[in-house]
């Protein structure tokens, strides 16, 4: 379980997060929603150590994550799939996956086999360069790379960005499966609220760096005022 308390983050004079507090329970998908500039990506970057908070705490089980180096947080079991995916085009699918297992103490061949079973298309293309993959396949590769290190927490930043609706649906289905089968704590940042709320158990809505709603996904979907003010049209 990840507990974020009173988290504030600034970029110079601009305050991106203002005293954000929420809990992401184990085995639950927590969607973080909001418009552009709400602070969603900053929140994930702060949890994974890429951005240092001005104040506040982040706790993973009994470990404090705030102000830790990203590599140490990764070793504590936090997998982060950043926006833009971050796969290396000149590496093959398998080499990209090996990168994910590089610093983790996991059995590489078992890990590779597990990811190829979960994402069969990656298994078929294991010797191909990542540059030749489609957008959806690249997203799968980025997720598989994070999963190969056997994280207990998975941070997903806009996984549906630039993907066709069908591919997005398939991806969301995989995320749901992962959460159920492996008991992962998933924090899913999405601009596409409908997509995220369809699979999320819990949702946090950010507006200009503040938490304006923090409740079960079903309650947020049912609250018409909230949807209209902060999420636009939710199907």
């Amino acid at each position, binding site marked *: 379980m990840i507990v974020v308390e009173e988290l504030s983050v600034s970029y110079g004079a601009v305050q991106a997060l203002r005293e954000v507090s929420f809990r992401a329970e184990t085995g639950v998908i927590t969607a973080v929603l909001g418009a552009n500039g709400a602070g969603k990506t900053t929140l994930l970057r702060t949890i*994974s*150590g*890429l951005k240092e908070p001005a104040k506040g705490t982040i706790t993973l089980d009994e470990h404090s994550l705030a102000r830790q*180096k*990203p*590599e140490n947080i*990764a*070793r504590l079991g936090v*997998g*982060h799939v*950043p926006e833009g995916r*971050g*796969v*290396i*085009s*000149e*590496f093959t699918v398998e*080499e990209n996956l*090996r*990168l*994910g297992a*590089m*610093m*983790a103490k996991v059995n590489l061949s078992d890990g590779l086999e597990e990811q190829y079973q979960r994402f069969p298309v990656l298994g078929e293309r294991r010797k191909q360069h990542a540059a030749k993959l489609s957008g959806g396949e690249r997203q799968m590769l980025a997720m598989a*790379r*994070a999963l190969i*290190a056997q994280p207990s927490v998975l941070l997903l930043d806009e996984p549906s960005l630039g993907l066709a609706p069908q591919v997005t649906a398939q991806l969301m289905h995989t995320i749901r499966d992962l959460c159920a089968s492996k008991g992962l704590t998933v924090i899913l940042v999405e601009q596409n609220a409908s997509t995220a709320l369809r699979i999320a158990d819990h949702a946090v809505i950010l507006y200009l760096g503040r938490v304006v709603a923090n409740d079960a996904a079903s309650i947020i979907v049912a609250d018409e005022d909230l949807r209209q003010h902060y999420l636009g049209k939710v199907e």
Partner: protein
Amino acid sequence: MKWLVAERRRSLSAALIVVAVVITSLLAPNPRDRVALGVAIVVAIVGVATLTIRGFRETHPVFARATLTVVALDVALFATYFFSSITNFNLAIGAAMSIVLLGLSFLTGASGQISLGNSAFMGVGALAVAIWANHHASTPMVVTLLIAVACGAFVGLLLGLPATRLRGPYLAGMTLAFAVAFTAIVNSFTSWTGGDAGLQLPTAVTPPQWLSSFFNAQTSLLRVNTMWLADITIVVTGVAFFFMANLFASRTGRAMRLVRDNEVAAELVGVSLPRARVIAFMVSSAYAALGGALWTLINNSVSPPTFSLALSITILSLVVIGGIGTISGALIGGVIYAYSTNVISWFTQHTGINSQGNLASQLPGIVFGGLLILTMLFAPMGIAGAVRRVWARRRVRMTP
């Protein structure tokens, strides 16, 4: 007949070995040379046969690299017996330079950092060997070379630590400052370094007695000496290239490339960016120092002004011309550097340019500058990249 077809590789290798033994017995003047020539040819044939086994390079990458290194060393060492003194000297210089280029190629191509101070790192290795040899003449050569490498790595560490906070032009600026300051630093410790005059090695590197009896090498002392220097340099180069090829393919090498391409992704998979950058800097400067140390052994002396900023720029140009981030690019760059002097002197002879004149002294700069422009225009990935592209196109065309 069926067996011959099924075991094509083995039967071909066996046939080649028989032919080699026959040629050996015809070529070599005495039994000792026959054995040497025979062993060299057999090693080359077995090595090539092993390397061409389908899937061998994928299933046994380290063994494949080791085999390739042994075959290349076998051929290169053997060739030195037949080369002239000048060719062997050029070969030694080219091999030493290719080590320096390989280090910079790793720094730039694999970790995405830049250094304009590689001539100074070379100077560190060159001076370390000369100073150590002048104070401890009895130290074995391998130990002296390792000391030079350690000195280079240490200076790389000192510069690499602040470099972790610098990027692009700022990093280039810092390494440039080191290159510029190197001569002044050396001149501040003249009692150790000899200042601009440099240092002479107390004793020349001499070949072992047994070497001179092979292939009539004893015809001239100069020939034996240059052949021995070329042999030493080639072996050290082979080991350095083997180590680097494995480093490129290793976890560390992949981590470096991840840092180069996507720092965020690197941090998220647990790579420490400062550590990766410092290691890259240390490896690069250790390689430059090794190249410089060999340079001192080849020339039997060290002259600090040689390791000027101009040499740094030449090194960077050669890395680009050969192909940044490639092993073969460093070799190509080394060969170009080694034989550029010959090409330039041939050019001055055939064009009537005064070899002592101002134009002739500027010719190396003009040649490397021209080559750099041509590379940028026609082969942005360097000669190695262009060859790889042509080869890939050819394979696509040949695929039915």
